[in-house]
């Protein structure tokens, strides 16, 4: 080593520390406030690799990262960087997707909790525990799917149907608004969506006869800008003024008064496509489950509705299961992608529905382009008529209890998929590299029958009984890669327990997803070959994310078994009873200091 060289280094270091000192001095007056998240940051989220500002790694929800430092060649070396425990006695399903911004991770957990963590050290910065009343009515575990970031705020919804905006630096409440009354069955579990300074939210509670709606508030203040109900007949509002009845008038596709408690809960969140300036929001089952009580299509249940964020009006809709009689919610995400067809590019959108069909739509007008099964057994329909866009039903509906001899229980049918769906809430991913969708699916069916039911506020409003059964001995869960242009299944990975976690794909030719058995797994995006797995200690039902920081790529996922399967899964619930609960977030990276930039 040579002295001159060392002196030079020292001088360099000194200069850097003086610079750092002056920066600290300049900003200490504002108490090191977080870098504000702008609308432009949010619109660029899919392309910027150093942060994860949105649920879905971009408002379109493609869950794709262009990062390739971690790739199919080196993913086998992935090791934990840190893990963080959510603590307490409240270890239930952890379905959350972490967000990464300005050196902090923001992650939500069961029972309406949120943590800010130093993303370099894994140390807690602050936590917010929402005080929940004893009588909350979540249908399907006390989950939360994630937060949203805007300006200096981190926003999330709670199980007692409140929307809370916290200061990113301190965790202090900046504003809090009540979405609705939890005693009427309302709750909120999905991640809010930010569009043009608005925070877009829906409501949960489709099992309690609530009325679904999509709402936009000023993200900085919480003030309501527009409200769009998702059940025909209900009035929408813009800036406090009437803004047209959803569907024009009541009773076009609903009989009698049933639209007043019509369900169509907007419980799984939405995506936004800046190309068409449309929000795609999924709607749940019509209420009650007993379809014999509500002849008609029951709009806009089990649909994707496309809403203009500037007007709060529905531009188009596509209904997956008209007059749904199987609880085939249409809430699953609708993901914008560009489809090459005959030499031109079509603005398309993909949607893998609970009912077992994968739909490819023109996202400018909602016109159906293709529909193909993504599970092996679909009993309720033979297919979807591409001309009319309607399912070709087989007639396998549970019988009308009014026609039963005792008037109590209608005839029972066995039908696949089960009401937990060919795919449930857990979001799929789309890779612009492979041009494939990666769909977390489940192969199961159900015995289902109808019963008489009357609406009672705050009580379950089903009018159905059911029990879920696996279709195969060795697996229920199956991760499948589909080419949306052809409907061709390119590969599949079978998993013993049902899959209940989100998917991530990267330009490192990788697909990540978790399993209830506790593993986070990585697959070759082109072949489906399993390349890496890590046991996190409890079931993984959250959504993995990736980002780069200080020259290294990181992957994070929450761990904690729970969700709807153990509560509603019938025979399946018994088979997963041995899985233990947890509550943590894990972060992974490649060993060694720095990876060479690709």
């Amino acid at each position, binding site marked *: 080593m040579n002295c001159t060289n060392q002196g030079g280094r020292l001088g360099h270091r000194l200069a850097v520390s003086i610079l750092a000192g002056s920066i600290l001095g300049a900003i200490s007056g504002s108490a090191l406030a977080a870098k504000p998240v702008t609308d432009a940051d949010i619109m660029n989220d899919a392309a910027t690799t150093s942060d994860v500002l949105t649920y879905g790694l971009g408002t379109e929800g493609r869950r794709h990262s262009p990062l390739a430092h971690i790739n199919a060649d080196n993913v086998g070396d992935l090791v934990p960087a840190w893990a963080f425990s959510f603590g*307490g*006695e409240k270890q239930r399903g952890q379905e959350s997707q972490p967000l990464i911004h300005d050196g902090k991770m923001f992650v939500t957990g069961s029972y309406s909790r949120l943590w800010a963590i130093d993303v370099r050290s894994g140390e807690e910065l602050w936590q917010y*525990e*929402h*005080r929940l*009343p*004893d*009588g909350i009515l979540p249908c399907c575990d006390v989950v939360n799917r994630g937060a949203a970031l805007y300006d200096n705020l981190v926003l999330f919804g709670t199980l007692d149907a409140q929307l*809370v905006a916290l200061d990113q630096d301190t965790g202090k*409440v*900046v*504003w*809090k608004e009540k979405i609705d009354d939890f005693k009427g069955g309302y709750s909120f579990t999905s991640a809010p969506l930010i569009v043009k300074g608005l925070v877009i939210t829906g409501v949960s509670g489709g099992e309690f006869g609530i009325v679904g709606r999509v709402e936009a508030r000023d993200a900085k203040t919480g003030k309501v800008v527009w409200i769009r109900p998702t059940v025909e007949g209900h009035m929408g509002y813009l800036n406090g003024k009437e803004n047209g009845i959803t569907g024009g008038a009541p009773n076009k596709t609903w009989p009698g008064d049933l639209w007043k408690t019509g369900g169509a809960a907007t419980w799984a969140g939405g995506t936004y496509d800046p190309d068409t300036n449309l929000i795609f929001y999924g709607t749940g089952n019509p209420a009650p489950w007993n379809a014999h009580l509500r002849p008609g299509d029951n709009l806009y249940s089990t649909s994707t509705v496309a809403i203009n964020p500037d007007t709060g009006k529905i531009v188009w809709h596509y209904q997956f299961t008209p007059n749904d009689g199987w609880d085939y919610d249409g809430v699953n995400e609708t993901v914008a992608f560009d489809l090459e067809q005959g030499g031109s590019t079509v603005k398309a959108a993909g949607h893998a529905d609970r009912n077992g069909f994968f739909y490819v739509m023109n996202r400018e007008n909602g016109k159906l382009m293709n529909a193909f099964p993504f599970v092996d057994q679909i009993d309720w329909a033979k297919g979807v008529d591409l001309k009319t866009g309607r399912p070709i039903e087989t007639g396998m509906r549970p019988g009308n209890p009014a026609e039963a001899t005792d008037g109590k229980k209608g005839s029972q049918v066995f039908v696949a998929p089960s009401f937990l769906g060919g795919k449930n809430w857990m979001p799929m991913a789309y890779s612009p590299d492979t041009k494939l969708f990666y769909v977390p699916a489940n192969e199961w069916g159900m015995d289902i029958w109808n019963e008489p039911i009357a609406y009672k506020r705050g009580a379950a409003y089903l009018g159905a009984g059911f029990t879920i059964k696996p279709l195969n001995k060795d697996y229920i869960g199956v991760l499948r890669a589909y080419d949306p242009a052809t409907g061709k299944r390119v590969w599949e990975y079978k998993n013993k327990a049902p899959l209940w976690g989100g998917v991530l794909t990267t330009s490192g030719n990788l697909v990540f997803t978790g399993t209830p058995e506790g593993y986070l797994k990585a697959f070759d995006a082109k072949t489906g070959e399993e390349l890496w797995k890590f046991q996190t200690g409890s079931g993984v039902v959250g959504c993995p994310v990736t980002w780069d920081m200080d020259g290294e790529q990181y992957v994070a996922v929450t761990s904690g078994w729970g969700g709807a399967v153990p509560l509603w899964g019938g025979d399946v619930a018994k088979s997963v009873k041995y899985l233990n609960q947890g509550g943590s977030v894990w972060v992974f990276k490649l060993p060694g200091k720095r990876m060479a930039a690709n």
Partner: protein
Amino acid sequence: MLTVVSRALNSGFIAVAITLLATPASGTQVDPLGSPQWEFMHRTMLDGAPYEFDGRVVVMTPASAEDAMNVPVSFRVEGLGPIERVVVFADLNPIHKVLVFHPHDARVALGFRVKIEQATPIRAAALTADGVWHVGGAWVDAAGGGCTSPGYTRAAGTWYETLGQVRHHRWPGADGGDAVERLRLQVMHPMDTGLAEGIPAFYLERLEVTDVTGKPYASLELFEPVSENPYFTLDINAGGRPLRLSGRDLNGNRVEAELD
């Protein structure tokens, strides 16, 4: 010199306090309450600023707490001129700071209730314009446990039903004339400390009494040791005008009430 002062600011209880009569400000004084925590309190509650133990700051408490979750306390500051704010703290509580009182147009006097975990001095420190804290205090003996047990409304499951409800009463002529009114408030809130197992901190953090135009009479910053469903007694110069109470808790739940 120690004196014993006996008064009744709030009707309903007899208060006893031990205070030191006014002595000139100096760097270090002997704590008249002999608390092992005083130096630490001076550093953390008063930021190490100049102070004096001052008999003009009178803190009244029962000598012994019958109910460690509801210990009635009142303070009164007289003869010190304008007071910027009064900080109340309990030396030997697991969470020391109780509240900060800002008298905008009110007498520098407040009645309230606190939770205490064990026998402790309860102090009020009043800040004058010259930057000196004037400190009064009293010992309360207690069997303990007030901060680490769940509240009554939590056990009864009723806290969510009554959250943020306000009751109040106004008595004119608190000082012999019509200008000063005594105002008694109760705000329903569990005021959870975060120290009871499985129950995170959840408490009112701000209350303000204003007229209808927003002109403030008094405001309060509140912390974990304030009792569940807290009561406050204030003497304000409202002269019968309509008043409004506003505030919020740690979760952003708002308190809004007209105090007619």
